[in-house]
């Protein structure tokens, strides 16, 4: 591939020290690359360490072994090229929607008078132009995600890291948000690393779907290219024959891991 690599995890291993001194290995030797302009989705059973891997790419976690390279430079500290969309609510509850979006620029030293109109523009592009003065608690879950998306995108990061961003939303809102994300992404095609447990969502959105095995010591066990044409409409693409074939193929691998992950989580609960 000739396009430069945006994110490269090379044999990254992530381990945590538990309270009793034992070491818990979350992820073992993960090798993963995201090319510039590529949309990669990571799918895996609950507790497989997919969010952990994302945090490593963000620089919020340091790998115990292996390396992280961002645009071919080793990552030290936080990943300054990346915008991160969290699963949980991460907006500042004491700021209005407008201020929440503007803060991304203000941090960088942009004057407030200059940041506010841009923030308003971004709010409008996520469909919340009329909600600028609302505080997060006055917005619905889906609207808060839109604000969070605008907050991240206004900084124009080269890489987007997304940790089950639409997980807490209801099924219909998720699809609407998926389409909004694809529309925005289509404009400048950033590198995206998108974590989800929803295989359909992954196939509908991504260029590549990466499957992780059940934890602990989970590893990447599969990597599929999605060749569905773009631009896509999430509602339509699910009816496509190719979509179904791919879904069946990936699911046959993922299913075993999901069952394993489920067995492990119930087993672990018994041990405790």
């Amino acid at each position: 591939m000739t396009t430069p690599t945006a994110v490269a995890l090379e044999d990254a291993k992530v381990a945590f020290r538990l309270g009793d001194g034992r070491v818990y290995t979350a992820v073992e030797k993960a090798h993963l690359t995201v090319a510039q302009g590529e949309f990669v989705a990571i799918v895996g059973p609950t507790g497989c360490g997919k969010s952990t891997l994302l945090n490593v790419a963000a620089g919020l976690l340091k790998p115990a072994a292996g390396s992280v390279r961002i645009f071919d430079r080793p990552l030290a500290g936080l990943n300054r090229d990346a915008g991160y969309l969290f699963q949980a609510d991460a907006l500042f509850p004491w700021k209005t929607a407008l201020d929440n979006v503007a803060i991304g620029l203000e941090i960088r030293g942009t004057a407030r008078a200059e940041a506010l109109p841009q923030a308003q523009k971004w709010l409008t592009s996520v469909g919340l132009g009329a909600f600028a003065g609302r505080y997060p608690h006055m917005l619905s879950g889906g609207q808060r995600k839109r604000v969070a998306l605008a907050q991240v995108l206004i900084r124009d990061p080269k890489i987007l890291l997304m940790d089950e961003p639409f997980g807490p939303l209801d099924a219909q809102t998720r699809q609407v948000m998926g389409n909004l994300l694809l529309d925005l992404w289509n404009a400048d095609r950033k590198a995206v690393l998108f974590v989800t447990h929803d295989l359909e969502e992954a196939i509908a959105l991504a260029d590549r779907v990466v499957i992780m095995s059940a934890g602990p010591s989970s590893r990447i066990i599969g990597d599929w290219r999605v060749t569905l044409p773009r631009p896509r409409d999430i509602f339509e693409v699910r009816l496509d024959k190719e979509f179904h074939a791919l879904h069946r193929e990936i699911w046959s691998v993922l299913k075993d891991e999901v069952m394993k992950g489920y067995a492990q989580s119930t087993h672990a609960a018994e041990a405790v």
Partner: protein
Amino acid sequence: MSRVSLLALQLLVAIVGIVLWQLLSTVPVFGKILLPPFFFSNPVDVLDQIVKWFVSGVIWKHLGITLMESILAFVIGSLGGVLIGFWFARQPLVAAVFDPYVKMVNALPRVVLAPIFALWLGLGIWSKVALGVTLVFFIVFFNVYQGVKEVSRTVLDNGRMLGMSEGQLMRHVYWPSALSWMFSSLHTSVGFAVVGAVVGEYLGSAAGLGYLIQQAEGVFDVAGVFAGMFVLSAFVILIDFGVTLVERRLLVWRPTVDGRG
């Protein structure tokens, strides 16, 4: 229920209470007055006393002193509580070292400190301010400490990923979070500032509402004691109303109980 009828009912309670008090303290029931005036006075005398205070103007000086002491106690106590609360929350080692002492001082009933403060700071306003500060400080301190400690992990990570420096995290994340906790205890801490001032005055002073009540009590002037109590409650309700206004202005971003602003 409409506002008007609620207000009417509230007024009714006051009227019934006052009328009962007046009747029982002046009209004998079966040849006996149930509320002897010496111990219970009566509403007319109490009102008379209050009117006299306001007409002659002596009350303003005492109200002014108590208000001044309360404000000083509140401001100094809050400032100290915010600063130390912040410091302890950001430096776990410091917090751990001082933890037993903080608990010890907080466990102390503040009234026993009043004589010490009177000794150290004299009988003027500062010994009362000091007493109020010891009350306000701990409320604000614990709240701010909690507020900084309990900043949502995700919100913090979000701040970091958006590129905030430590200073910016302080300004945009820790500070508003701590303030919101402090304001949630605003009613309590303002109330305690007044308590500190009045108790201090009561135990030894030459002016203030506490002094007024203590003086009346000294000469068995029950009407004076009740009058002082009524003025004091009206004073506290007024301050509390002011606090509510400030709170509404500052905490617009917080969900109310029904989930809507």
